[in-house]
């Protein structure tokens, strides 16, 4: 399988603080890769650096053979990368439908109706609330909206930043079930999570990030049984 996305020795600095240290990883076409790490490990920084926010201070980010580390965010988005970011960042004063429409910017309105119907099938809650202002929805619904919005651009690579954050276990389960369905259509997913249990069960391969460095890497199953991972993320069970 070819690499869709590859980080080569990427450094990111916030002023004097180094948030990512020589991070190298790859996401292969058609797989689900995951990155687990605790708060402040640099997971969100890693995802946002793909869109140049912040710009990396060293190394390369290669997407489909092209170094995109100095490209503008809208250029990256127009080339098949979509993100459901940290904090969901849905547009609060827009309706659910309008939020979904925002996802179509990179590909235009051609498949809009069809895709929106598809999203409503994946997330029936969104259909019930299609004309409601996004800010009035619950956290779980907002998370679904953020994922659906990202899917509306028919991305080649879907980037997800902690879709389980702050949600009830039952909702987390639903969301991971939907991600599994989405992945089964062949979409490549790169999932960043603290919820190691769910993420590693879903993923083909995983990375563990500690303090801005990749500490461990392996298949999902390998990491799930790794004593270090169990100790740090799975509560030693």
């Amino acid at each position, binding site marked *: 399988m070819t690499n869709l996305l590859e980080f080569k020795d990427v450094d990111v600095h916030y002023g004097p603080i180094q948030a990512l240290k020589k991070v190298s990883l790859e996401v292969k076409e058609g797989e689900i890769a995951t990155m687990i790490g605790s708060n402040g490990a640099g997971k969100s920084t890693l995802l946002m650096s793909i869109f140049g926010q912040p710009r990396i201070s060293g190394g390369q980010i290669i997407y489909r053979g092209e170094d995109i580390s100095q490209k503008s965010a809208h250029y990256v988005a127009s080339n098949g990368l979509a993100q459901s970011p940290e904090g969901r960042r849905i547009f609060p004063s827009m309706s659910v439908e309008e939020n979904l429409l925002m996802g179509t910017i990179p590909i235009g309105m051609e498949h809009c109706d069809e895709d929106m119907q598809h999203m409503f099938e994946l997330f029936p809650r969104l259909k019930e609330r299609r004309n409601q202002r996004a800010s009035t929805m619950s956290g779980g619904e907002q998370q679904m909206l953020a994922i659906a919005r990202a899917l509306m*651009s028919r991305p080649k690579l879907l980037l997800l930043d902690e879709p389980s954050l702050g949600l009830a276990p039952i909702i987390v389960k639903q969301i991971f079930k939907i991600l599994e369905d989405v992945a089964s259509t062949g979409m490549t997913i790169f999932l960043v999570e603290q919820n190691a249990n769910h993420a590693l069960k879903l993923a083909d391969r995983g990375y563990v990030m500690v303090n801005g460095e990749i500490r461990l890497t392996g298949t999902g199953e390998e990491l799930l049984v790794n004593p270090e991972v169990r100790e740090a993320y799975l509560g030693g069970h």
Partner: protein
Amino acid sequence: MDIVLQQLVNGLTLGSVYGLIAIGYTMVYGIIGMINFAHGDVYMVSSYLTAIAIALLTFFGMESFPIIIFGTLIFTIVVTGAYGWVIERVAYRPLRNSSRLSVLISAIGMSLILQNYVQISQGARQQGVPTLLTGAIRFDVGDGFVQITYMKLFILFAAFLGMGVLTYVIQKTKLGRMCRATQQDRKMASILGINTDRIISSVFVIGAAMAALAGVLITLDYGAFDFYVGFIIGIKAFTAAVLGGIGSLPGAMLGGVILGLSEALFAGLISSDYKDVFSFSLLVIILIFRPSGLLGKPEVEKV
């Protein structure tokens, strides 16, 4: 009674024009959080462009009112829009990541540059345009009468049409959605593939175009203008934007109409010398009770 009605009509006309100019303040504030102090001077430039357009059209022998008015509107709106685009490009975009104060000072600088540039290129004397549309409708009310000039009717029609079209564009079109997305979360908008710099440029062009519409209408009605007209009307429109809730598009229109009406009623019934005192007092009072303006949303810190 007739005075009240007459002043209501006058106030509504004036207010709709304030609203048009206030749109430029409120949209720019909404999208990049700055007060564009050069906006009043963009309006002033459009007054001169109006006179130039009328002179050109008359020179080429086009004298019928519809041709002159549409020719003037198109020319002035396009050229003023270009001014808006250039101003953002040279004075604000290079400071995109600097502090708000730097941009504010740049805006004041831009305002002075525009005033002096027009003063040097067009002369400091007051200029004028001929009256194009004469005549009025009269209604008898009690002992007196209310008179609405055709020009005032045209202003009302054009101003509300302009606001209606803009509201439609912002609410229903793709460009409008992209503007709102950029206003609500610029970083997320760029991650979704929106070229936010281009959207910010469009907002400046839209604001300038609305000011140009106001400029054509007021210039045709009053006839006279000089290089300093942008200052006071700019302050008034800014007041209207704050009154309605800066950042809110319907707020700007509502604020403009309220300001125009209250100013006209105060001038007609109490004293025209103190009408500005009244309108600014109104602003102070509203801000005491509603610090974010009539339709503005209180700023919520993002968590």
